[in-house]
């Protein structure tokens, strides 16, 4: 280790191997069997439970917790997976404090919810460790469906279609399935290659063919028309492949945070990843937090999130903000980037103070500069190029409630489609529900 946290510029290997390992271990360690039993005991088994209502995939939470409490975690896992086949990942990445746990009646009673996320992880881990897949593909219907995009929406859609007996082909542009679970979320949320292990387990259902490094519309791969020619229906789970660019002088000096995170997720050795001594992240969402925290964990001396609006408006949850703060990330609010300047020995990001008034965000004359060796921009992702004929609704693909697009035999779901926050759990719900609708359509119901 020749470099340290104080090495100027952008450098790899700032930490010892032990430090990297410790920094990127499981952020929320799993419950032991005893801890799970104690946690499960706290569930009141509510009628028409608010937690289940708050879950985008409507997992029967009181039932699965009761199954854990009675010593049958595999049955609990089956309860979870029957609604949400990515229940293992969701247990790790869901913002439970705003979903199930936020709705737990124990919040009202004593401000401490039942640890639903950790219990879900306990149940799903138990089943996954046994390597068995609890579902089998249905009897073949003779229909075939193309699923474009192997992220959470596509995987959920493919699995549900397989259960119904349809032949499914997943077309994925990247080398691996998993989408943001594989490339996008912070490493410490799903360590030990969990995303890939979950995908492999999911595919055990059978009846799903996988084509990777295949991008829709790319020469040599295929078009939507090709897919419609080969398959009876197409599901688009193509996510948001573009990023909003920083349109300001020097904007090109910033790196998209998504690229930084993807490289980190795919790195075999974290010590090879260069990271700035001083890192500035522009944005206020989950991606900004994931990037800023991981920059710090990679050995950045300072990591600062700068968000243009007030802290209360940050898209990152309070839990995420606290997570950033406890890892030494500084959060500056009400400051909008004006320019990135290349100066001797690095960069300087110039910000203008902002004020939220009646007419929206107003930039003030008051400016300041932050020194930076690395600037990451996390100001939102956008739809990539769409096949001809697919209509948009605002920034997303337009769909009806069942996920049908403007084109016949084409459905869409996940981050590329509207409704709800861009969360894994929402993508799963949309993929699953689209599969149900595709099934009804194909079977003539």
């Amino acid at each position, binding site marked *: 280790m020749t470099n340290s946290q104080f090495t100027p510029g952008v450098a790899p290997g700032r930490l010892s191997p032990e430090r990297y390992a410790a920094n990127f271990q499981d952020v929320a360690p799993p419950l032991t069997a005893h801890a799970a039993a104690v946690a499960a*005991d706290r569930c009141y088994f509510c009628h028409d439970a608010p937690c289940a209502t708050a879950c985008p995939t409507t997992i029967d939470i009181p039932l699965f917790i009761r199954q854990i409490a009675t010593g049958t975690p595999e049955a609990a896992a089956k309860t979870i997976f029957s609604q949400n086949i990515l229940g293992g990942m969701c247990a790790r990445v869901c913002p439970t404090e705003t979903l199930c746990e936020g709705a737990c009646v124990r919040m009202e009673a004593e401000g401490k919810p039942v640890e639903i996320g950790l219990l879900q992880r306990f149940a799903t881990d138990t089943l996954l460790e046994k390597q068995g897949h609890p579902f089998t593909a249905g009897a073949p219907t003779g229909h075939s469906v193309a699923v474009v995009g192997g992220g959470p929406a596509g995987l959920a859609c493919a699995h549900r279609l397989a259960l119904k007996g349809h032949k499914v082909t997943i077309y994925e542009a990247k080398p691996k399935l998993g989408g943001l679970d594989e490339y996008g979320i912070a490493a410490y949320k799903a360590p030990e290659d969990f995303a890939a292990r979950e995908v492999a387990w999911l595919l055990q259902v059978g009846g799903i063919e996988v084509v990777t490094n295949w991008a829709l519309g790319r020469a040599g791969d295929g078009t939507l028309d090709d897919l419609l020619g080969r398959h009876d229906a197409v599901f688009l789970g193509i996510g948001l492949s573009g990023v909003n660019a920083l349109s300001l002088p020097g904007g090109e000096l910033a790196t998209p945070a998504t690229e930084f995170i993807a490289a980190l997720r795919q790195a075999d050795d974290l010590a090879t990843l260069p990271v700035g001594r001083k890192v500035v992240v522009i944005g206020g969402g989950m991606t900004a937090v994931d990037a800023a925290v991981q920059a710090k964990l990679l050995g950045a001396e300072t990591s600062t999130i700068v968000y243009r609006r007030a802290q209360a408006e940050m898209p990152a949850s309070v839990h995420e903000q606290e997570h950033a703060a406890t890892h030494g990330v500084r959060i500056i609010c009400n400051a909008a980037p004006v320019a990135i300047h290349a100066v001797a020995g690095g960069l300087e990001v110039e910000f203008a103070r902002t004020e939220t008034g009646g007419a929206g965000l107003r930039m003030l004359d008051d400016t300041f500069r932050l020194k930076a060796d690395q600037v990451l921009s996390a100001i939102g992702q956008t739809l990539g190029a769409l096949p001809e004929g697919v209509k948009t609704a605002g920034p997303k693909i337009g769909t009806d409630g069942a996920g049908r697009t403007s084109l016949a035999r084409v459905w869409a779901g996940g981050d590329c489609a509207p409704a709800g926050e861009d969360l894994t759990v929402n993508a799963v719900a949309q993929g699953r529900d689209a599969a149900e609708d595709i099934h009804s359509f194909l079977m003539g119901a």
Partner: protein
Amino acid sequence: MADLRSNFIGIKSPNPFWLASAPPTDKEYNVRRAYEAGWGGVVWKTLGAEGPPVVNVSGPRYGVIYGGDRRVMGINNIELITDRPLEVNLREIKSVKRDYPDRALVVSLMVPCDEESWKAILAHVEDTGADGVELNFGCPHGMAERGMGSAVGQVPEYIEMVTRWVKQYSRMPCIVKLTPNVTSILPPALAAKRGGADAVSLINTVKSVTSVNLDDFCPEPMIDGKGTHGGYCGPAVKPIALNMVGEIARYAETRGLPISGIGGVTTWRDAAEFLAMGAGNVQVCTAAMTYGFKVVQEMISGLSDYMDRKGFTSVEEIVGRAVPNFSEWQHLNLNHVTKAVIDQEDCIKCGRCYAACEDTSHQAIAMGEDRTFTVKDEECVACNLCVDVCPVDCISMKTLPLGTVDPRTGRKVAPYANWTTHPNNPGSSNYTCGITAAE
């Protein structure tokens, strides 16, 4: 600090909390620790006759019923009486009593059902300086197969006969410990009284099997592939014990017979309830076995605070206070009407009251769009189930004042009237054969 001193049938102790005859009181070492922790008295684990002692199993001796978070709700035990030589126990009893003269020390006895056996053991016990004896007519396991324990306690004539021998051959106060494994507790209590018992203690353990091993298909505790019934104790049996204590306390012919209350006493509150139902003191086992001897300190402070709050200056003032209100069903006021009321401020919207009422009761709770739960007075029969299942105790029963109309029946709340005078009661002089005036 209230005065907790207790005088139970002439046996004095600094507080009314005694350890029951059971595994915790089998040895000098344990009993000394108990006294040091603050227990007012101890009933030494049951002694048997002279000669080779009984033998206990060395497989598991206890089974258990858990509540949430593995809280022990009930223990089932198959341990027999002391398996240590009689002379060792007697020597230890003498030594302990000498060192703790202010504490109660009663010796539990179980010997074969013949006069000579009882005569012989009593002489030995008197030599120890113990304060009294307790006749173990209660244990339902093991010893009962040999004609002792509950085998005696289930035959009132035997109870009377043995009690008479004990009073004949000893000057020591005599407590008769009763088994709950009978259809009515009154004949055994009466028999003890006729035999001259100074007091009864109850309940001994309830015949039970706590669990079944589902791999070996064997009742538990499992000893080398076999299980046997045991005696059940702990918080789970408290309701059975309170009823039996209360029955003896209110029944005309047993009223006034001193009672040592036993059965699931875990906190000061349990103890106070036993006292109010007619017990002169209480005996504890499972709470000590679960948490250790220190639990008595909470019992002492809790009972003391309660007495101070209520203005009671002696334990005797609590004894039997609830007995006049321990009524038979037929004397309950059938005109008393209450309705459940949900405190919306405290409600956490779990909906358990709704599920319980809708699925298993009277469909008397409405669930609003926003999960607001409200009681439908026109359906509520005041069963109290919603109160019982509410996890945050936000439901209470409100009494309808005299003269107000009960929306369920459309009738005005009338003054006290019970089943004995009810027109539907064939035994009542108001009986109408179900024919109403309108017909």
